[in-house]
């Protein structure tokens, strides 16, 4: 069985962390599908830029300065310089396949032609025609416990409810975070100060699980476990209201 990754950018942080965790486990991925982000991402990005411009236009200079100074003070959980070098070395000789959007017909045909493969996916939403490919298993990293924390802002909600942090590698399926679980581990989390720090930490640690999950699957030591999903709308988490986030931030800093 082949191993691979998908990404819309070789500098994508999650992609690089997952690739590194695979290299650490002795897996040299057979291919990397580098796809265009597509119109969806373009419109999303332009929407984001517009929103930021609109927001900042209304904010005072001191607000902007305080935002940037806060951002600078957040410790970053990311690959070390050596690890980044190892990733770059691998990428210089890796089989990188340029493709159209991840859901495009040509990309589907490309994946179909790969034979059996397990693919760590960093490509946004996959549509039904991609997910129905019988030769490919698409994996996702979810920085929380499943099925408990399906949906949005799962790190924030787990913190709100004072629950432990988990990292989960699961198969991507049609529903939101509903796919079978390949690996789930508790993340020992130090006391951090901000939501951003907790998010960075838990995503970083969750990405580290990818190599272990893929190796375990290839060595037949791990298998997919079905999630017990109730299907009730309230068993899913939604974007946390900013006022709740504000209170969560205060709680984390002990204010």
């Amino acid at each position, binding site marked *: 069985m082949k191993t691979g990754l998908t990404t819309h950018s070789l500098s994508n942080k999650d992609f690089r962390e997952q690739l590194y965790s695979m290299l650490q486990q002795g897996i040299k991925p057979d291919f990397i599908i580098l796809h265009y982000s597509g119109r*969806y991402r373009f*419109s*999303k990005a332009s*929407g984001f830029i517009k*929103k930021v411009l609109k927001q900042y236009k209304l904010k005072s200079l001191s607000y902007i300065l305080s935002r940037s100074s806060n951002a600078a003070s957040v410790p970053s959980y990311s690959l070390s310089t050596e690890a980044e070098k190892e990733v770059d070395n691998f990428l210089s000789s890796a089989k990188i396949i340029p493709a159209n959007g991840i859901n495009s017909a040509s990309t589907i045909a490309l994946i179909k032609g790969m034979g059996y493969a397990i693919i760590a996916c960093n490509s946004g939403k996959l549509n039904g025609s991609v997910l129905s490919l019988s030769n490919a298993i698409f994996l996702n990293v979810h920085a929380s416990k499943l099925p408990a924390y399906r949906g949005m802002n799962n790190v924030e*909600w787990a913190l*709100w*409810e*004072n629950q432990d942090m988990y990292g989960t590698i699961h198969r991507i399926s049609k529903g939101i975070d509903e796919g079978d679980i390949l690996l789930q581990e508790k993340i020992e989390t130090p006391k951090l100060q901000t939501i951003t720090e907790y998010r960075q930490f838990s995503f970083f640690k969750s990405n580290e699980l990818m190599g272990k999950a893929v190796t375990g699957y290839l060595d037949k030591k791990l298998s997919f476990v079905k999630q017990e999903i109730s299907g*009730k*709308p*309230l068993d*899913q*988490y*939604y974007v*946390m*209201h*900013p*006022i*709740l986030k504000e*209170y*969560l931030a205060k*709680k984390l800093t002990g204010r």
Partner: protein
Amino acid sequence: MLKGLLRYARNFSVSLLFKRERNIVLRDFFRYSLGQKVINNQTINPWSDKIYNETERSEALTKAINWLLHSQVSMGDGGFGSYRIITGWTTSYPETSGYIIPTLLHYNKEVQQNDILTNAIRCGDWLITIQKPSGGWQGEYMADNRAEVVFNTGQIIRGMVGLYKQTNDKKYLDSAVKACDWLCSIQENDGCWKKSAFMGVPRVYDSYVDAPLLQVYEITKNELYKQKAINNLNWIIDKKQLENGWFEDCDNTIKHNNRPILHTIAYTIDGLLESGLLLNDKKILDAAIKSADKLFELFSKHKYLNGRFDRNWKGSQDIICTGCAQTAIIWLELYKLTKNTQYLNAAMKMNDQLIFIQDRQVNESANTKGAIPGSYPLWGRYEAFNFPNWATKYFADSLLLEKECLQEAVTLSSTK
């Protein structure tokens, strides 16, 4: 159809004649009609990125209460009316005046402002003077001079119970008891109310009558009130609620019973929920939760709720603001019951939308400032170009309850 179109044309043209009213209509036009965008087949509504902080929420609540009080002053008799852009103030509406009383009492508790209590008492005293010899209260506005109606009577009982609990003055309890006796005397054998029902047709939203009946039962221990409420609740759940949570006979018209308005759907759910809590009855609570969760699902998916829903919960028509506020209240009550923060989270997002609608940012007269319109945009089908007092009442209720729930949620999260 033609009549409706002519009415719309008249409403639009008249509202554009007056400067302040024109500002409101044009503001809605620019914010709503031009503010909507479609990205990747998804409609992005103008309120979707509007978030209001706690200070702004408090200000919105104050503005809403001030408008209600202005409405009472404008009536002169102690009741509360509604403001229509085209024709100005209506006369007092006994039913809604009745259920505005608990809102004022709740606000009074919050701000400890005794003159608000005086306003509530003034309204209650006026309602006693217009109680019919039967014990019921008339339907619609005072000027309509209608016969007594079951639903309307139930809502005034809420006010009477509130005032009795607050002042311990027996006249309010006597009035409520008289009304309950009348309600019990005219209930049909199968548990519904047909006689003296609005348009002579039984409605499921009479669950919102059952709750005040049970409130009076709690005080008087008159078993008849409890039994009659249970009879009606069973009729609703066993005969009128579908498996997917939707209700038959839920609209306040006969013509549109196939797609009732959110306002009456929310009445029905809230009545079930309140009654289920008062009776501590799982069957009734489950029936309420089933429908409330469906609205939660639709809101989470579409980021707003339509004005009407058919039996498959397919939405149609513009936003009906009062229904949105009532739905937020239901979710907040469910938060209190279940401690599931997703209910609170959704209610807060709904309140953001309503504050956006209230916050028109134009120069307004006291007749509209702080008021919530019937529909959004203002020219939507429900109460077009009107500011019905019940929309603002439920909006205020929702903000008051949100504040309580938020405090509870923050405390729970900090102490878990």
